[in-house]
């Protein structure tokens, strides 16, 4: 049961400006039936190029309808330059807040407005320039980056709440994480230890930590993309004992992966004499 504010409930039960302007100056449509959310925004300008009339049609939940209604109230009387400054946070604040999981409804509002303004200006919002990160919901890297910056997001889960990206098959999670890191800088992600220069010897503790870190950072994410996984069982000197999980456990290429990929990566990041074996 969502904890909706009174304002959200009001804009849902009594939405303002429902409809479609026939010969609109601006026409923006985002979302689809498949997504479960869609918004069609139309506006007409007056002689001073301010938004005189604006209407919306929405397919979606209470948050979606309320966000659309709120947005139309917020843009009335504004110039396009003023209107396009409105962020999804502004829409959510106007409503007194939205549950985290529903923030993507406010993002949809802003996107429809951007599309409508672009249509008036004769621009086309070229989705093809950007990379589609989330195939389930068709979300591009540009959209994710924008949401991360404007809403100060730091986790994949938050990105899902605000954009829906990563809410389907989840295979794009590593890519979303990469975008988050790109926005906030790579500081947290630098390895604590580095492979020692030639001649230097690692202590046992250092070697074990480096092996664990390399598995977590370099090897496991790649296996997980294919539905597989690896569990570290033990480390005896330079011998690393692992167990295969998920699709790796019955994959015919498992041996190949183990030697050519896992062992190779460990030799690259830890020490040249590392060997990898599977626990029977």
């Amino acid at each position, binding site marked *: 049961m969502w904890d909706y504010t009174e304002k959200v409930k009001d804009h849902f039960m009594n939405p303002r400006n429902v409809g479609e302007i026939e010969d609109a100056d601006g026409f923006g449509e985002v979302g689809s039936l*498949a997504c479960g959310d869609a918004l069609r925004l139309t506006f007409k300008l007056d002689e001073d190029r301010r938004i005189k009339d604006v209407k919306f049609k929405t397919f979606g939940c209470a948050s979606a309808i309320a966000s659309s209604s709120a947005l139309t109230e917020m843009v009335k009387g504004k110039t396009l330059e003023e209107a396009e400054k409105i962020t999804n946070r502004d829409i959510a604040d106007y409503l007194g807040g939205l549950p985290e999981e529903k923030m993507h409804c406010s993002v949809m509002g802003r996107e429809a407005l951007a599309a409508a303004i672009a249509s008036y200006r004769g621009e086309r919002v070229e989705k093809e320039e950007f990379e589609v990160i989330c195939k389930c919901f068709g979300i591009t890297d540009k959209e994710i980056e924008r949401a991360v910056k404007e809403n100060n997001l730091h986790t994949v889960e938050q990105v899902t709440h605000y954009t829906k990206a990563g*809410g389907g098959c989840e295979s794009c999670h590593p890519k979303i994480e990469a975008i988050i890191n790109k926005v906030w800088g790579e500081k947290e992600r630098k390895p604590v230890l580095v492979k020692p220069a030639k001649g230097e010897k690692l202590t046992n503790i250092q070697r074990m930590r480096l092996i664990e870190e390399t598995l977590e950072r370099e090897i496991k994410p790649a296996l997980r993309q294919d539905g597989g996984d690896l569990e570290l069982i033990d480390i005896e000197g330079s011998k690393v004992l692992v167990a295969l999980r998920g699709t790796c456990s019955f994959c015919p290429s498992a041996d190949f992966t183990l030697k050519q990929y896992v062992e190779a990566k460990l030799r690259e990041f830890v020490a040249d004499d590392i060997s990898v074996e599977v626990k029977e």
Partner: protein
Amino acid sequence: MKTIYVDNNATTQVAPEVFEAMKPFLQDLYGNPSSMHFKGGEAQKAMVEAREKVADAVGANPDEIVFTSCGTESDNAAIVGTLESHPEKRHVVSTRVEHPAVWTLCKHLEKKGYRVTMLSVDREGRLDLDELRAAISDNTALVTIMCANNETGVIFPIEEIGQIVKSRGIPFHTDAVQAVGKIPLNMKKSTVDMLSFSGHKLHAPKGIGVLYIRKGTKFSPFLIGGHQERGRRGGTENIPYIVGLGKACELAARHLEDENNRVRSLRDKLEEGLLERIPDTLVNGDREHRLPNTVSVSFEYVEGESILLMLSNLGICASSGSACTSGSLEPSHVLRAMGIPFTAAHGSIRFSLSIYNAEEDIDYILEQLPPIIERLREISPFWRDYIKASSRK
């Protein structure tokens, strides 16, 4: 505002008789049945009586009944308990439309290295038994297939399935949480080895469940601790709730006919009324082999959560398979497995009745829902497009 509760597959109200039966055990009769003194004896006696009533409800022997905390625990115990007893086998067969208590557990088992085959269903939500026959292998440790689906009400042919599974010597578990109390079940004449059910779907409170384990079935305990439930499930027995469940099972046996006749006709009236009064409405699931109390309908071009909130404001309580209500961003995995198009899945509403519903509840819904759908369709961008397109034909 009157409450019209038509969400009984989510949970049911506690029957007044059940509450009365439980009260003494939350007051003076507080003993632990394992104790040697008379207070323990009082509790022990009540538990024995309740166990008999529960066993009668499914045609089982009392010592085949294990009390758990909920349906999910029963499902987890059955599946994990069987896998632990057959460690050399690493394959499980289930379906794509199971309740999360089974479905999510199966996904978890896959991560742990088990191979899980999820049988598919057709557009009506029915299984293909040939697919089941082909899926079973020498490495299959367990087949777990639900008795009746919580979203669509579709009933699976459990005995036919059981014949196939047992002929290969494989343990067979069924999640019967939605079926017990609605359709007759008799373990004496069944092929099922283990069966789960839950109190709160039967007008008992939330927090009590049952796992039926046929005598002779290998089972490793899931909750390990004291010797309770003959060493099959540790933990001091939840006496007040066990007594409540016993009473609920007694009532369920009495009400089975009412459920299958009067309640069924109320459901049919609701279904037919909605199809008649609201255009572009579909029923999801096999209408013939279905629980008597359930109907899942889809209203195209509008979204489920909005419909539910508007109904809720009028006192009507139902649920939906839409993305917004599923807890994830995708619509219900059951509707998707059935191949229901997104256009319909997002606008799906489930009504599930009980013996406490009356004809005026149905009449009220039939009166109030059409204007809601009409209003939401006016707000939807797709409805007008659809109307324009179809008028051009």
